[in-house]
């Protein structure tokens, strides 16, 4: 039975990527975990490289919903689906990938909020 609330992962692309320069990471993550109906909200520096793969394999569980705030959704699928498949999870049915680049903090928060509310309906 899948846990009810989705889990939020923020991938911040090392923190150096200009795509996230307008976003206040710590303000965003505290807004999400403080105000939205998520199980919790965590930050990973770079899911798309080796240690990101190892993290995903260690962390992801089948049947659980994840919202991943990061880069382009098609890129996310390409980069994460194999690691997830290795542990019996399915990117397409379990992950809602959100592109939060080039957004102010409030704008990114609204996008996550709408996604969580749609999921929890």
């Amino acid at each position, binding site marked *: 039975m899948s846990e009810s609330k989705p889990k939020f992962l923020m991938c911040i692309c090392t923190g150096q990527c200009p795509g996230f320069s307008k976003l206040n990471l710590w*303000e965003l993550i*505290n*807004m999400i975990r*403080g*105000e939205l109906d998520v199980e919790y909200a965590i930050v990973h520096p770079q899911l798309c490289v080796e240690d990101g793969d190892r993290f995903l394999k260690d962390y992801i569980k089948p049947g659980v919903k994840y919202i991943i705030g990061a880069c382009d959704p098609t890129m996310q699928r390409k980069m994460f689906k194999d690691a997830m498949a290795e542990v019996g999870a399915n990117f397409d049915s379990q992950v809602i990938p959100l592109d939060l680049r080039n957004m102010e*903090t*409030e704008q990114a928060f609204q996008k996550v909020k709408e996604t969580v509310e749609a999921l929890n309906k």
Partner: protein
Amino acid sequence: MVRDRSTYTGLPRSRINWFPRIDKSKCKPQECGFHCLNFCPFKVFSRVDGVAVVAQPYECNVGDESCRFQCPFGAISFPTREELRKTLRSLREELNSNAK
């Protein structure tokens, strides 16, 4: 980097009722040596007439309860996370509707 503490995630800090409460019946500062006061980096607590008081409530870091675990007598309490969530949500909605 000194952060502006008058707001919390864009919300006015003075409108967020998040700060410690001290149960006077449990508080024994002479025995613990004012643990809370020595621990809190935001100077929320003060010593007044030999007892610990919450002197600067709105300097408290929203969502932070670490001082509660410091008190050897369990004299410190905070609002629940659910109360905090409700406060933040309603303030956020108020802020967004004023902005429209």
